[in-house]
């Protein structure tokens, strides 16, 4: 560790511990209409991203009611579903994102445990 200077740009201490260079997160949140659950999920994920991935994430919110054909292509079962497309591996996070700890585990931002 001493040979490798810690970059200033690291957004959080937790991410820094994981080692690999920072990467842009490509996230898609699939919701079904403007339900309370959808709204909660959107608000929660935005907060989490801002806190932990500020500046290196792209979040796209998709309403399945508007684009139902995406549900099959993206293998969506539950709603809301957040798909972490990048960095690999692909991860699916379901639910209203109310447990930020679990969201971070799901995003591989934080190790499980």
């Amino acid at each position, binding site marked *: 560790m001493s040979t490798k200077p810690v970059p200033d740009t690291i957004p959080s201490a937790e991410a820094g511990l994981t080692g690999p260079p920072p990467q842009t997160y490509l996230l898609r949140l*699939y919701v*079904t209409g403007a339900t309370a*659950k959808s709204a*909660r*999920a959107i608000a*929660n994920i935005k907060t989490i991203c801002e806190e932990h991935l500020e500046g290196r994430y792209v979040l796209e919110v998709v309403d*399945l*009611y508007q684009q*139902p*054909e995406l*549900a*099959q292509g993206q*293998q*969506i*079962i*539950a*709603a*809301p*579903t957040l798909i972490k497309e990048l960095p690999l*591996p*692909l*991860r*699916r*996070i*379901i*639910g*209203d*994102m*109310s*447990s*930020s700890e*679990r*969201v971070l*585990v*799901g995003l591989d931002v934080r190790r499980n445990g």
Partner: protein
Amino acid sequence: MDPERRLLPKTPTGIAGLDEITGGGLPSGRPTLVCGSAGCGKTLLAMEFLVRGATQYNEPGVFMAFEETVPELTANVASLGFDLETLIAQRRLALDFVFIERSEIEETGEFDLEGLFVRLGYAIDRIGAKRVVLDTIETLFAGLPSPMILRAELRRLFRLLKDKGMTAIITGERGDGLLTRQGLEEYVSDCVIVLDQRVTDLISTRRLRVVKYRGSAHGTNEYPFLIDEDGISVLPITSLGLQHPVSEERVSSGIARLDAMLGGAGYYCGSSVLVSGTAGTGKSSLAGHFAEAACRRGERVLYFAFEESASQIMRNLGSVGIALQPWVEQGLLQFRAARPTFAGLELHLTLMHKAIEQFKPRIVIVDPLNSFISAGNEAEVKAMLMRLMDFLKLSQITGFFTNLTAGGSAADHTDAAISSLIDTWLLLLAVESGGERNRVLSILKSRGMAHSNQTREFLITSDGVQLCDVYTGSGGVLTGSARLAQEAEERAQQLALRQEIERQERALERKRVVLDGQITALRLEFEAQQAETQALVERQKAREAQLARERLGMAWSRQADAPTGTGEPS
């Protein structure tokens, strides 16, 4: 159909036999649960439901697969002749593989299955589906957390399907003590079908049972079913009851003398005929005659052989003057030869069923029946044969069955105890006497006709079967050379009697001749005596006349006085 069955609208599955059991199909616009253990054909049944719907009833369908991917499914059912790719291209079928990988999923709070609903709803709307299959939805429980949420969502899913008016099949794995692992039967309460695969005597058979059908009568038995190149066939034959029409038409047995014994006209058309007998009594020859006669009339005959191959049967029958080969070539006669152990009873029955439906024969021959019987399955064999006979009768097909009676057992006993199902029962017996075995035929019963009660000797000649009168004289019932010997002896006895009479007649004649001779001799003797006596009398008279003359002369010479009389001269 009776009016009460009309109350509940039904959607025909198009699966052979299933619609008969359910009285018309699955409940329209409602989900049906199909459950069973692995490998018993749930997916296939569900897929056939969709494919038949799309191809035969113009009802597009959505197949949502949770276990097999689309290419896997397509390949699996291609062997059944289902071309999914074409149906998908024609928008008559939609396949959706729902991929769930537990390790990829992180649950972070409250969720629902709206994503799945959107998918399903979109697929339904896109092709205007009327039918839906969810195979196997319980996979969700393994792939997603929170069973509580899932249960609530499943309830909502089934509601959604009902609201959309989908006739749906939901499949489920069989669980411990429950029909399905997750108790899906709780949600799908309209119709439940259980599939099962059991192995008996090393032979596996798939069975289907309608456990529940709300608002409808249905067959409650376990029905065996078969998966072959045409899809699924269920055999609902026993559910049909005894309503077959009967025919007054008669059909020749192929042996004139036997027809004469059977009220002069042969078997009834559409009846079941059983020929039982010990080994080598000519059962197959009777079958061959019957088949040949039918072919001669231009009727189709289907011959199920379970002990000999087709060519062996034709060779053997050819040796007794029954040529079947030409009829096979003309397509009037078809052989189906298979070992009984080749498949389970139900499979055999199903195969026979299918063969009969395809070939549409007027006569079906099963030779022999009892090769199906192995240890301990008599009840099943009987059930199977009953279904076969019912089916034949319903189709107005004359069934001709042979039954091999084991040596030593009662001749009027069939192994499968099917005698009560039989209309005409011929008995062939080998009678052993005088160092030879001779065959005799008698009619044990023949329903609905005046039939002969006589035993006939059954001769197998190079010109086919011939029936002869047996000897039933004072020496008992004799057959074969004993009959010939007895007949010869009787002829000899009659000849001897005739000769004796002639001899006696000759003796009498001789006596008469002798008597005549004696009479003549006596008469001659009498005439001789008579002549002698007369001569004597004549002679006496002549002498007396002589004396008188001499006396007169003497007197004259002595010049005697006038004659004084005849006194001595003094």
